[in-house]
């Protein structure tokens, strides 16, 4: 048939911190070097590189892909930056998949970097300009509005309480205590989340993952090369992505239909017919606690409106039927946007190889799904991995 299989053979990531001493290129270098070392490759073995990073406004450099390239090994290489807003971290390996599955190269380095702390007085400032400059920005919106609007719609539709949702933050922040990169791990109670400072009702401070700095990288290889480099390649068997209309106020926010479409694209490619049965570990994007639930439903991992109840029943715990965000997710590890998405893919890589240490879920999982989301409630990016 002519389809080339692509595997993840190595990974690396930095600590996720509020403000790193390292520059963007330095963070990229740290993650890339670690990824190459993990599979005993040198930069000269890498033929092509794709780097994902979210708004240039964070790092404060126009064409920041060009600025970062020296740190991502891009000098004298085929290098390109991919950018789909918050979906970038999971899209970056999809872009890498294109490089290898096409036969353009056998080894591709995928990097994801974010240095949000460069943006003063707050990285939120870079988000003002995501709204339509003519029909929305004159209203002086802030990023938190769209999450509050979406969260309320989701809660109203299914009669959920804030406590139903807060359980996700508690779970993920606890899971993250076992993740070496974690920025905001800890043992919290539902009340801690509920009583945290309100930002835009119904969103409170501890419902939100923190902005920060960090980088991650994976090495992708074609089947022949992968088998020489490792006895446990993790296959990128399904990739999917989908972008909804820019007229975001004209769709019902309670359900991320674009995540479902992206998921179906990935599941079809991977030959997955019943995701809620076949997927054994899930890393949906959780920049806000309600998002994990929203995305579980969009990923067809449970019926609509059921995610909160299943969470309360322990279904998504590390020892549950479908461990979800065993890494600790954005809520626990931190959210340097593009790096977070790739961190989730790396979590699948480690879990499927039995190398997740204290975070390892029982039962030797063989199939997992990772997902990121972004733009203005618009983009879903999904990968299905198999060992």
């Amino acid at each position, binding site marked *: 048939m002519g389809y080339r299989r692509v595997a993840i053979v190595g990974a690396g990531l930095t600590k996720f911190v509020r403000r790193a001493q390292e520059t963007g290129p330095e963070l990229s270098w740290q993650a890339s070097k670690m990824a190459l070392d993990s599979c005993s490759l040198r930069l000269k073995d890498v033929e092509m590189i794709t780097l994902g990073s979210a*708004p240039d406004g964070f790092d404060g450099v126009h064409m920041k892909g*060009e600025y970062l390239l020296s740190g991502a090994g891009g000098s004298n290489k*085929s290098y390109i930056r991919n*950018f789909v807003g918050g979906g970038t971290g999971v899209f970056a390996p999809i872009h890498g998949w294109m490089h290898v599955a096409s036969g353009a190269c056998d080894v591709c380095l995928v990097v994801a970097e974010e240095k949000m702390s460069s943006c003063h007085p707050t990285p939120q400032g870079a988000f003002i300009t995501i709204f339509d400059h003519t029909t929305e920005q004159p209203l002086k919106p802030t990023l938190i509005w769209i999450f509050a609007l979406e969260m309320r719609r989701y809660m109203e539709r299914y009669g959920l309480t804030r406590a139903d949702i807060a359980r996700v933050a508690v779970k993920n922040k606890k899971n993250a205590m076992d993740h070496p990169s974690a920025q905001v791990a800890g043992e919290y109670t539902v009340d801690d989340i509920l009583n945290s400072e309100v930002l835009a009702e119904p969103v409170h401070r501890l419902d939100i993952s923190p902005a920060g700095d960090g980088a991650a990288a994976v090495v992708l290889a074609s089947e022949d090369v992968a088998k020489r480099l490792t006895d446990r390649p993790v296959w990128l068997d399904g990739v999917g992505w989908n972008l909804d209309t*820019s007229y975001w106020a004209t769709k019902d926010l309670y359900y991320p239909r674009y995540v479902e479409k992206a998921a179906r694209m990935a599941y079809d490619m991977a030959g997955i017919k019943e995701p809620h049965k076949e997927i054994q570990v899930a890393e949906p994007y959780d920049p806000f606690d309600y998002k994990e639930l929203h995305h579980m439903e969009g990923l067809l991992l449970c019926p609509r409106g059921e995610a909160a109840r299943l969470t309360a029943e322990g279904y998504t715990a590390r020892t549950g039927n479908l461990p979800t965000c065993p890494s600790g997710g954005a809520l626990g590890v931190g959210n340097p946007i593009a790096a977070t998405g790739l961190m989730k893919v790396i979590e699948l890589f480690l879990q499927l190889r039995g190398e997740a240490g204290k975070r390892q879920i029982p039962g030797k999982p063989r199939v997992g799904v990772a997902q990121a989301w972004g733009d203005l409630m618009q*983009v879903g990016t999904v990968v299905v991995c198999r060992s």
Partner: protein
Amino acid sequence: MNGRVAIIGIGTEGFSPVTPHLSFKELTYCAAVKAYRQAGLHPKEIDSFITASEDFMEGYSIFDEYVPDQMGAVMRPVHTVTAEFLQALGVGVMMINTARFKTIAVEAHSKASNIKTLHDVKAFALDPVYLRPLEEDAEFLAGLEMRRFLRDSGNTEEQCAQVVVKNRGNALLNPLAGHGAKLRVDDVMASGAVSTPLKRLDAAAAADGAVMVVLAAEDVARSLCANPVWVDGVSWFSAEGNPWSRDLGVANYAKLAARKAFAMAGKTVRDVDFAEVCDEYSYKELQHLESLGLARPGEAGYLTENGFTSLNGDLPVNASGGSLGVGHAFEASGGMKVVEAVLQLRGEAGAHQVKNARTGLVQSWRGVPTATGAVAILSNE
């Protein structure tokens, strides 16, 4: 890799210094409608879409948000690369070569006229620690590069000026061009210093415009299109990432990309009948010709002066008028060049048609402060 990849539809809207009657969405919609009609496809039938854009050129954070509607790509697989059009085209070719996509639409546009502080946007691309504090005008890098290139190659400032005369003259014959003019070398030499030796008329003025190209796998191309234009080879490279460690005399990105693109195409420089190379600054055309191997080192200026690269010469370069003549459309300028190459290879270039166009080379550069660019080899056989 499973078969060849072809361009089966092109569409443009522009290029001109201003486009006040259309928003960026409407500009792109116009280009898309034309490309899809030529391709004989409704966007619902196109498998995936790619946009090449940069946030600060649009004035948006996450410009990707604003692209699907005007491409007819709502709830479809769409992605953005912060790269030049030709790189995005290369990604489209890769996608088809995965054998999971049959048709890809690639888009880029420029609304440079809407940027009131373009100067500052360009400066914002400079390294914040090492370069920005030194100099607030990114164009200084073009001056440095020009000086180094002329010294190393032996080409002259007058020969660079001749590039301007040629290209802006060619543009008078191109209905898509916004900056056609009848100039003399003296006009360029006397146009005032920007960053010596770079003079004002050595630099292309900006233009607004949109380009959409539809790619198809060989079987679809042959069934839908009577005159597909084959993308025989495409490659992109970045040379040394930091400007201060870079060999400024040579365009290494063009050298590396050409080597890979020619190898993919199974062709050499001898097969090239015409070329569209980046001439955002006049000296770049000469530098690119030498780095691509289309001229020997030190020879590009001589070839220009003696008409070898003119419309009727042995190797017409920038028959379109290039960025100097059409206007520089930033991420879309490579798209303009692809469109030109397609028209030439179809024999549809009218007044600026070159003879015996069978294989064309298209090359792009991302501009200062980058050393990134792509090369594509296109043919009609």
